[in-house]
């Protein structure tokens, strides 16, 4: 009985945090101007080089790239970089170039093995090639509106601001994996990013969109400093803060288009992100499970069986979570069918199971390669042959000791 009430208290704690996340999202999205951009009535528009590291066909790739060619912004260039000229995304970029012949779009192809982070590898040459002093690192699965550049550049008027990143919302779910992904982005990720920024003043950098000056990036060691780091976005943010520059999360919501994901892709991504958070946050990662009230509410079912009490508790928590996620989805202007939110508790349960994986595995498969994750998400090659298991265990013990 005491155990049941302990569960009750943990669930209540999770729901309170969830409520605070909703308030944080509401307050962040309601503010019409970015905090750092208010003071200066005359906005400057520095020319921007947009770096697009591409690999493979993302959902809605043509539309995503097209949205960057339709920006209402005086001067900018788009640099698309590939590791392989046979990449199917290459053809899409060529078609975009044909559609926008006057737009300065460059294609860079270089097979680069400088580091283990494939995204950073893909950006080295594009970065060298970029001609403007401000760069925007933008993922291929991002779609934006016409006023995106004008809005995110506002905080850069303040010279103390070193990095601007964005809130993201998931859109376009047409399969179970992408529906789960979008539900998770629009509740857990959006809620936590706003919560951390508003209450704890911790800007959580998500690498889907990062606006940064070249001189600041060079001051923190340039891209080469992050070539072996899995969470390069988080550590770029950290280093910028160490440089006494501010990291601003713009309240401009960018669309992360996920349409046809399978369940496997959803699980793989969140296993990878979970491992990243475990390596970065350490003990703070343990706290994450307590803010998943649906998963916690499932546990009494296994411990005490199917009783009226356990079922009522689970039903109530699921109902609150469905309504809350529905509200967040509406707040983020996500065009998802209302019935889709009924899947939210199932997604939360799955995320609860995924939470345990980082304790059992310290490897990650990213863009087809397997790596070992060390301290601060530093990647090293996974030995595929001979004694791999022994190596993994030793590496795991070493990483924990460090």
């Amino acid at each position, binding site marked *: 009985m005491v155990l049941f009430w302990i569960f009750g208290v943990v669930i209540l704690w999770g729901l309170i945090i969830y409520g605070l996340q909703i308030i944080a999202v509401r307050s962040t999205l309601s503010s019409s101007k970015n905090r750092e951009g208010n003071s200066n009535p005359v906005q400057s528009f520095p020319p921007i080089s947009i770096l697009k590291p591409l690999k*493979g*066909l993302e*959902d*809605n*790739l*043509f*539309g995503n790239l097209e949205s960057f060619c339709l920006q209402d912004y005086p001067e900018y260039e788009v640099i698309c970089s590939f590791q392989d000229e046979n990449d*199917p*995304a290459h*053809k*899409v970029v*060529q*078609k975009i170039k*044909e*559609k926008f012949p006057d737009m300065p779009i460059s294609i860079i192809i270089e097979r680069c093995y400088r580091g283990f982070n494939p995204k950073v590898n893909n950006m080295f040459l594009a970065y060298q090639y970029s001609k403007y002093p401000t760069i925007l690192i933008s993922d291929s699965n991002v779609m934006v509106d016409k006023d995106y550049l004008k809005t995110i550049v506002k905080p850069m008027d303040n010279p103390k601001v070193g990095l601007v990143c964005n809130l993201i919302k998931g859109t376009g779910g*047409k*399969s179970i994996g992408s529906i789960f992904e979008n539900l998770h982005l629009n509740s857990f990720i959006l809620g936590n990013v706003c919560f951390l920024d508003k209450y704890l003043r911790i800007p959580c950098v998500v690498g889907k969109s990062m606006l940064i000056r070249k001189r600041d990036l060079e001051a923190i060691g340039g891209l080469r400093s992050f070539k072996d780091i899995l969470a390069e976005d988080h550590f770029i943010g950290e280093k910028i803060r160490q440089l006494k520059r501010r990291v601003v999360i713009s309240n401009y919501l960018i669309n992360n288009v996920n349409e*046809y994901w399978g369940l496997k892709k959803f699980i793989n991504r969140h296993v990878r992100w979970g491992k990243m958070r475990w390596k970065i946050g350490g003990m703070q990662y343990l706290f994450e499970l307590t803010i998943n009230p649906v998963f916690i509410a499932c546990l009494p079912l296994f411990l005490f069986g199917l009783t009226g009490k356990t079922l009522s508790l689970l039903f109530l928590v699921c109902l609150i979570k469905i309504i809350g996620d529905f509200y967040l989805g509406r707040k983020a202007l996500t065009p998802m069918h209302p019935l889709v939110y009924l899947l939210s508790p199932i997604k939360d349960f799955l995320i609860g199971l995924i939470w345990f994986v980082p304790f059992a595995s310290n490897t990650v498969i990213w863009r087809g390669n397997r790596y070992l994750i060390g301290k601060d998400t530093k990647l090293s090659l996974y030995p595929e042959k001979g004694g791999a298991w022994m190596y993994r265990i030793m590496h795991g013990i070493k990483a924990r000791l460090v």
Partner: protein
Amino acid sequence: MLLCDLHIHTTHSDGSVELRRTVDLFGQAGFDVIAITDHVVNGDNAFGKLARRFNFSIKEDSFKAYMSHITQEAERAWDRYGLLVIPGVEITKNSFSSDKSAHILLIDIKEFIPASWGYEKIFLEAKKQDALIVACHPHRTSEKSFIDTLFLWNNRDKYARYIDAWEIANRDDVFNVISLKKYPYIAGSDFHKVRHLYSWKSMLNCKKDIESIKQCIRSNWGVAITLFRN
């Protein structure tokens, strides 16, 4: 080279993706040419009757609406993606025996052709409409062994002269016998589900217009196939 998929089904027959979404899917993936080829099923046996009963077939009375929908989407696809969409059908003559079954793509068809007609009559009518005639999946397939369509290949001596190209590769299968015989060939996905986007495709070295594409395939000059993977 034009990246093409000339064998695509939508919810107009037994595909699971509706036409507009199909066009967007291929447009977003950078394709140059696609042909929408929904089934026209013969109604003279139980298979066909069931397919027609559950609207898995284009029928004479729905053909006009089907063509008009494709034309409308073709305009949108051209404006948005520079994607050429060609209307077509897959004449589906199913029988209980694989040796008596055949599927035929008629690409750039203008008027309805019933699947219950004899082979020669279908071919002659298609020629009259200047449609491209493709014998599809003419061999045993790994995925569809239940309904293999072997009739045309088994009777190639009689019918090869009518056929503009043979589908040398379908979805994940390759039928190298056709290339050995030096018949003109193409490859297609037989697209029914989103995952079928990643399958065998044709690459054509010609201009992006219907006449050039038909000419390229018929002459078998500048045709290549590629296994399209992400």
